[in-house]
Every structure is written in structure tokens, then in C-alpha cells.
């Protein structure tokens, strides 16, 4: 039985995992790098231990130090979250060798799926369709060009160890091929410590749709339906929804069935995601399997009612899945928007800075998973994901309306963020109608980057209030005091009630 979990991660996912630990009566141990001392996961966990300086290589990727802290704190299990060490088979093995429970699949499954090229071969054997592509690319530029020409341009360069869009490059022209391969290799090396890359046919107008899987140690594997993840910028998802507005019920059945087969082919245990590319004719191809929790897992939690982190913990405890496939029902529609500290107008350049003010959207059908607070400084060291906004409603139309309402309420000041950009996505006809593929953002770039139409009054008021704030230091008429300072309804009370007793 797991009693204390070390969460080998930071940011929103660390907080999210600790929440489920807390609900399960399991103690949580946070780890932190130097600049993360005041981060929310440190403040929220039962325990917090330093693991090194800012660069991930010396802290969140520092396996010996993390194992040392696990031992010192008396943790009996490690949850890797996503990113960092979550798909590092060596880490999974070392954790288990140290006598601890690794909350994730066996190292072999991670290895098999983490090596994208090996995964392709496995899938072909398991009867799961794959995208036409290459094996590992060498430095032989001529050969690479030959391979690409055989597949046919455009092609995608992908890191074999990759994930999250890192180390990925779209190449449209032969002359860009080899420089792109070099860049992809460099990025892959930086991100994963492994520069193996391969090439795949680039599907036109593809959808990115993935299936959530849970497998236990007793050979049971179920799926929790699909997530449509085609709204992407820089090859990274920013809006996800379930069910997909694109696929038919028939394709859903086939796809989830193949996803279970893919997981079964590596005796998968724990939570995992089988990603597919789906073309305009509803042909689907295996893209990769992520052997970890996915950023966008909450939309599946919302439509199925299943807490995926708790499910992971129970599986790691050796418990059999409490549901059969037919017990897993979905209801309604759920959408997630990823809130990033970035500037959509400057090619989604990530930003950093001190959070001055946050207003979280609340009320019915809304969930946020975040980690920042007022006064928190978003550092330049890590991923710019601030939080995830998840809504649920009875149907897709209502879910889009609710997301618009929630985004309207969501205010973060002090750091540039993509909230208004997301609002514009929700107002884009292609999205509203559910007719979009992975080219959605490029296709709608103009309207997505344009500001709202502004009437005279709203601009006038903005100018006036900037003037008021500017001049409040020199013009007494423009000094407005905060309500709590100027007003004393204690005093007022007596006066009012003497005349108007209630």
C-alpha cells in the first residue's frame, strides 16, 4: 500500500497530483529547484525537499538526488507527472531497483513506445495502422533527401524520444531538409538527451485525436474514449475537447479498439495515451503512445467521472481496475484551454514575470488546474504553462459558450498570456462549428490575431482611466481611494438605521 508519494515534477501537474494524494489520505513529498522554493507545489505538499539549482538537468532531472530525497523522506512511491522524467525508462528502472513503486508502466513499455521507430514496428505487428515513414535518420544528407523524396514532401522530422512538439520540424522543401534535421536533432538532444530523429509523411489536413488508456497488472486494459487535440500552435496543443466533433461513432469504435490493441502489445500498465493522426477521409494512423499522464487528461476525467491520478495510484498498488469497459460511460462535452505565459502577437514567444493579479473563473461547469498566485514570479527556466481551464456542459454548443464565459472571467495581469487569443478561438466560426484540423490556427491567423472591434466609447474610457491613474498623483480631483479605506459602513450603519430601522 502506497502511503507517501514523492512527486518528481513541478507546476500545475505537481499540484494536481498532490490534490489526489490528499484526497486519498496519502502524504505528498514535493521536490524543488532553487528558484521554485516559493512555488505552489512546495507550499501545498506535506513535505518539500530541495533537489538542486534551476537547470532541470541538475534538479528535476537529477535522478540520484531525487532517489536520495525519496529515501530520506520515507516515500514509498514516485509519481513522475508529465515531461521531465516521466518517459525515462532508466528512471523507472532505478526507482524500482531502489525498492520504490514507480507510478507508471514497466521500463520495457516505456522503452518500446519511447523509441518511436520501434513503436512503429510493434504497431504494424499489432495491426494498428501507421503513417508511411523512415527509420532513424543518419547524418548522410544525400540518403536523407532520397528517403524524403520517396515518402514525398512535405515530411515531418520527429525526435524518436520526443513528445510535446519538441524536436519536431515540418519540412516542405528539399533544400530545407538537412538543416531542419540538424535543428531537430539539436532540440531533441537538449530536451531528451537523445538526438535520434526520424521522418514521417506529412498528412494534409490531419486531425490529431488520441485515446486514453488504463491498464492494470492483471492484464485488463480499457479505454476512456478519445480527445480531439487538433488546435495547435508551434506543434503544441492549446485547445482539446472530448468527444471529437469530427469522427463518427463507427470510427470511434475502431480507433478505441486499435488503441487498446496497441497498449496490449506492450502489456501496458497504468495510464497512457495512444495518439492518432486522422485524415480528411477518416483514415487513422498511429502517431505515438505517451506512456504517462497527458496534459489534457482532465477533459476525460470530466466526461467519464474517473480521477486518472487516483486510478494510476491504485494500479501501481497492484489493484485490479474497478471497471470493465462497458462500465465506463461518457456524458456531455468537455473542452480544455491551456493558459500560457506567452505573447500570441510575437509568434507565441514565452514570457515571464511577476503575477500582479489573478481572477480565476469559477461557478458551474468550470475547473482550473494551475499553480500561480499573486506575487508569484514565473521564471524563465521552465515550461510557460500557467494553468488549464476545463469546462463541461451537456453538449458542445453549451461547452463553447461556457468556455467563452470562463475566459471572460479569467484575468491574469503582470505577465503576457494567451487568454484573449483563446477567446478569439472560441469565436472563430470554424471552431464553433467543430470544423477544424491541425491547420486551424494558421488558416485563421488574421482574425485570431486581430483585436476586437472597439467602439469609440470603450477606447475613450480606456484613455480616460489611464489619464486618471497617471494624474492621480498630481491632481487631487483624480484621487480615488480603495473602498475599504474610504468607507466605514460601521459608522454609516447607525445613522441609516436610526432613520430606517429594519
Amino acid at each position, binding site marked *: 500500500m502506497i502511503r507517501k508519494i514523492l512527486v518528481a515534477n513541478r507546476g500545475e501537474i505537481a499540484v494536481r497530483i498532490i490534490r489526489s494524494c490528499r484526497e486519498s489520505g496519502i502524504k505528498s513529498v514535493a521536490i524543488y529547484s532553487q528558484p521554485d522554493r516559493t512555488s505552489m507545489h512546495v507550499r501545498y505538499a506535506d513535505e518539500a525537499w530541495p533537489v538542486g539549482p534551476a537547470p532541470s538537468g541538475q534538479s528535476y532531472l537529477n535522478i540520484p538526488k531525487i532517489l536520495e530525497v525519496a529515501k530520506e523522506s520515507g516515500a514509498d512511491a514516485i509519481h513522475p507527472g508529465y515531461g521531465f522524467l516521466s518517459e525515462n525508462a532508466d528512471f523507472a528502472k532505478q526507482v524500482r531497483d531502489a525498492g520504490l513503486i514507480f507510478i507508471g508502466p514497466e521500463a520495457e513499455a516505456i522503452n518500446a513506445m519511447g523509441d518511436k521507430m520501434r513503436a512503429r514496428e510493434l504497431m504494424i505487428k499489432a495491426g494498428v495502422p501507421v503513417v508511411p515513414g523512415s527509420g532513424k535518420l543518419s547524418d548522410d544528407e544525400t540518403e536523407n533527401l532520397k528517403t524524403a523524396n520517396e515518402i514525398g514532401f512535405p515530411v515531418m522530422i520527429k525526435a524518436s524520444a520526443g513528445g510535446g512538439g*519538441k524536436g519536431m520540424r515540418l519540412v516542405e522543401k528539399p533544400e530545407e531538409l538537412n538543416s531542419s534535421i540538424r*535543428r531537430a536533432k*539539436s*532540440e531533441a538532444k*537538449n*530536451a531528451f538527451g537523445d538526438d535520434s530523429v526520424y521522418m514521417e509523411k506529412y498528412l494534409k489536413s490531419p486531425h490529431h485525436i488520441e485515446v486514453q488508456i488504463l491498464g492494470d497488472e492483471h492484464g485488463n486494459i480499457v479505454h476512456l474514449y478519445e480527445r480531439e487535440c487538433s488546435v495547435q500552435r*508551434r506543434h503544441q496543443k492549446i485547445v482539446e475537447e472530448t468527444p471529437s466533433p469530427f469522427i463518427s461513432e463507427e470510427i470511434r469504435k475502431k480507433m478505441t479498439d486499435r488503441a487498446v490493441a496497441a497498449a496490449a502489445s506492450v502489456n501496458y500498465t497504468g495510464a497512457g495515451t495512444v495518439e492518432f493522426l486522422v485524415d480528411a477521409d477518416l483514415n487513422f494512423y498511429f502517431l505515438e503512445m505517451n506512456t504517462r499522464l497527458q496534459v489534457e487528461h482532465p477533459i476525460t476525467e470530466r466526461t467519464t467521472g474517473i480521477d486518472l491520478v487516483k486510478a494510476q495510484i491504485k494500479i501501481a498498488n497492484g489493484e485490479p481496475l474497478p471497471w470493465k469497459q462497458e462500465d465506463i460511460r461518457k456524458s456531455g462535452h468537455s473542452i480544455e484551454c491551456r493558459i500560457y505565459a506567452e*505573447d500570441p502577437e*510575437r*509568434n507565441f*514567444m*514565452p*514570457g*515571464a514575470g511577476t503575477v*500582479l*493579479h489573478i481572477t480565476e473563473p469559477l461557478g458551474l461547469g468550470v475547473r482550473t488546474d494551475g499553480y500561480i498566485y499573486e506575487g508569484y514570479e514565473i521564471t*524563465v*527556466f*521552465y*515550461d*510557460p504553462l500557467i494553468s488549464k481551464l476545463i469546462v463541461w456542459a451537456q453538449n458542445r454548443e453549451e461547452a463553447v459558450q461556457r468556455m467563452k464565459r470562463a475566459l*471572460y472571467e479569467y*484575468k491574469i*495581469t*503582470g505577465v503576457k498570456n494567451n487568454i*484573449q487569443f483563446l477567446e478569439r478561438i472560441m469565436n472563430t466560426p470554424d471552431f464553433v462549428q467543430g470544423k477544424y484540423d491541425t491547420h486551424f490556427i494558421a488558416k485563421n491567423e488574421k482574425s485570431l490575431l486581430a*483585436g*476586437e472591434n*472597439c467602439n*469609440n*466609447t*470603450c*477606447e*475613450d*474610457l*480606456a*484613455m*480616460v*482611466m*489611464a*489619464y*486618471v*491613474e*497617471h*494624474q492621480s498623483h498630481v*491632481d487631487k*480631483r*483624480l484621487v*480615488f*481611494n*480603495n*473602498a475599504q479605506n474610504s468607507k466605514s459602513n460601521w459608522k454609516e450603519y447607525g445613522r441609516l438605521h436610526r432613520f430606517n430601522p429594519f
Partner: protein
Amino acid sequence: MKLVAKNGNHQEEIKVIKRDGSLLQVAIGGREYTLDVEKVEDGVYSVIHNGSSHNMEIIKSEKKHFYAVNTQYQSFDIEIAPAGSLKGAGKRQGNKSEKITAPIPGRIIAIKATQGDVVKEGQTVVVLSAMKMENELKATANGVISKIHTKENDVVKENSVLVEIKEES
């Protein structure tokens, strides 16, 4: 000193007519407004105008005299400046030097031009690795690369000048 507010190219003169309790009467560009203004938190105002409720956040920018004004639907970048100080604004052209700066601290992955290269606005000149992403820094104008201040693998600070471009005249 007369002050004007500027939103991009649009500028207006603002005059305070009267203040009475929470009521503020102002004129902007000849249009008069009576606003019910309450400060609800530092830099946050609730403004009611003819029944319409506006929640406005006003944040002093790092740029002097600039304010980010966030309303419920929009963001503005407003400058408050003395009237008449704007002469020549929007007129700059020719022989001007544009600078590509690092928007965030990071490490230089690639410099995709050398001194003397002709570049077009929007063309990627520098690739900067920061926050686990590769970020393409683009030419801000058509012109010629006049100076390169950095090299691959350099770790650069925010706002440091990386490349200068001499604009086409």
C-alpha cells in the same frame, strides 16, 4: 501643461470638468462623459457609464508614461504625454537602425544571417532557446544586417541587442 492620451496613432486631449464624490465629469476629444468611478483594488477601477458596468485594470508599464488598460474584452496600451510632444511620431523612415533584441533571457541557438545580408521584414534572423522552446526572432523591417552582437551558444539577457538592421530607405 496639456496632456493627451495616445492609443497607437490615435490621440485625444482629455480635460477634467468636475469631480463630485464618485462622479467624474470629463471631456475627451470634445465628447463629454459622466462616470461613476470606484477604485476597488490598487489599479482596479469599477466604472459605470450610463448604466454600463466596466471593470478596468490599469497597470503602469515599464515604458515611461505607458499604461496597460485591461477591460473585460480588450487590452489597450495607452501613453499619456504632453500635447505637442508627438510631432514627428509615425514619420520615422529611411536610414534608421532597427534592433532585434532578446524578449526573454535565453541561449542563442542559431544566427541565420551574416553582416551585410539583405533581410525582409518577418524573416527569421536569430533562434533563441528559452523556457524549453526555440523562439524565432524576426527582422522588424526590410534592410541590411549592419551589426551582429552575439554568437551561437551565447547566454543573453532580456532586452539585450542581438542584431542591428539598417532599414532600406
